[in-house]
C-alpha cells in the first residue's frame, strides 16, 4: 500500500531524478517518456518507449522501480504506452538545454514530420553555435544520435536525431 503522504506529484518529482542510461545528463522526465503516474492500491508508472529496439527501455524500467523502492514504495508496476508515440518533440526545453551544454546538439522541433523528409537542415554546433557544420555519419554511438563536425571550431559533436 502507498503511504497517504505519497501522491502523484511526489512520485513525478522522484521520477524527475531518474537518469537516462545512455545520456545520463538527461532525466527520463526531460526525455518526455514519463506519461502518467497512478496511485491507487499500488503505483503504476506509464512510460513511452523511444525506439522499438532501444536497448535502454528495460534498463529504464528497472531504474524506475529501483528509484521508487529506495523511497519505500514496494508495489510498483511499469506500463508501456505506445500512444501517442514518442518523438523527439517530447524532449522538454530544459532537456534540450542540458543536451546542448553536454555537447550534444538537440533535435529540431517538428521532427516527426520534417526530419523524415529528404532534406538535411543546418545543425548548429553545440559549442560555438556556428551553423557551418557537416554531417560525418548518420549513425552514432547510439541509435538516437548522428555524428557531426563543426567547420568553424573544428569540434566533432553528436546530434540527437529527430524522429
Amino acid at each position, binding site marked *: 500500500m502507498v503511504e497517504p503522504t505519497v501522491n502523484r506529484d511526489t512520485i513525478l518529482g522522484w521520477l524527475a531524478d531518474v537518469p537516462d542510461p545512455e545520456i545520463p545528463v538527461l532525466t527520463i522526465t526531460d526525455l518526455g517518456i514519463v506519461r502518467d503516474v497512478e496511485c491507487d492500491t499500488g503505483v503504476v508508472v506509464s512510460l513511452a*518507449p523511444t*525506439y522499438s*529496439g532501444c536497448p535502454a527501455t528495460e534498463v529504464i524500467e528497472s531504474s524506475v522501480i529501483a528509484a521508487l523502492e529506495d523511497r519505500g514504495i514496494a508495489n510498483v508496476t511499469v506500463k508501456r504506452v505506445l*500512444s501517442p508515440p514518442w518523438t523527439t518533440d517530447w524532449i522538454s526545453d530544459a532537456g534540450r538545454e542540458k543536451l546542448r551544454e553536454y555537447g550534444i546538439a538537440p533535435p529540431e522541433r517538428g521532427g*516527426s514530420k520534417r526530419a523524415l523528409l529528404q532534406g538535411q537542415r543546418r545543425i548548429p554546433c553545440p559549442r560555438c553555435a556556428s551553423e557551418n557544420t557537416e554531417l560525418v555519419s548518420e549513425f552514432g554511438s547510439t*541509435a538516437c544520435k548522428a555524428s557531426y563536425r563543426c567547420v568553424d571550431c573544428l569540434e566533432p559533436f553528436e546530434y540527437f536525431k529527430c*524522429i
Partner: protein
Amino acid sequence: MTPEQSLVAYILRLGDNALVLGQRMLELVAAYPELEEELANANFALDYIGQARMFYSYAGELEGAGRGEDDFAFFRPEHEFRNLLLVEQPNGHFGDTIVRQVLFDVYYLALLEALTRCSDQRLAEIAARAEKEVRYHLRHCGQWLVRLGDGTEESHSKAQQSLDELWRYTGEMFAADALDHALLTSFDGPDLGAIAVEWQKDIGAMVEEATLTIPQETHMASGGKQGMHTEQFGYLVAEMQSLPRTYPGAAW
C-alpha cells in the same frame, strides 16, 4: 477462423517478417567493412527485433494461451513461420542486402501506414511506432540504391542483378489471402491492391533515379505466407533457435 483468431495470426505474420529480416541483418553485425554502415545496420536490425517483440507480445496476449515473444521466436518449427520469402533471402553481397531492404521497406512502410488507421487500437499504435523507424531506414537504403545503381559500372551491374534475382519474391507481398481479407473486412486493415499500386509507383521512381531497370514480368515465387519456405530459411531458424533449444529456460 473467427475475426479474432485471424487478427492473432495476422499479427504473428507481421512479427515473423520483422524478426526474420532483423535476424538476417544481425548476421552481418561485425562483418561490415565500414563503421558507419556497421552502425546503421546494427541499429536498423535492433528496430526490427524490437518491432517483432511488440507484435509477438500482443499476439500472445490476444491468443491467451500463455505464449509469449520467446515462444513464438524460438520454439516454433520452420513451417509455422509465415514471413515473406523476400525477407528470408540470404544477405548475399551489399547490393543484394540493399535491394532486399528497399523492396521490403517500401511495402512495409505502406502497410504500416495503412495499419495506423485500422480499428484495432493497439495494432494501430504499434504500427505508428514502427512506421517512423522504417521511414528512416528507407531514406538510408534508398540513398544506397541510387549510389550503387548510378555508381560505377560494376556496382550498377551488380545492383541490377540483385534486382533481377529478388524481383520474383515481390509478388507474394500483394497476393491477398484469407488473413489479409479478414483484416480488411473486420478491422479496416490494409488494402493490398492499393498498396501494390503505391509500391509500384515508389519503386519505379527509386529504380529510375538509380538508373536501373524494372525487371520484366517473371514467375513469382510464393509460399512464405503459407509456411512453405526457401531452403536457406531452415539454416536461419536453426541458428536463431539453437541456444534456447539447447538450454531451455536459459537466462542472463
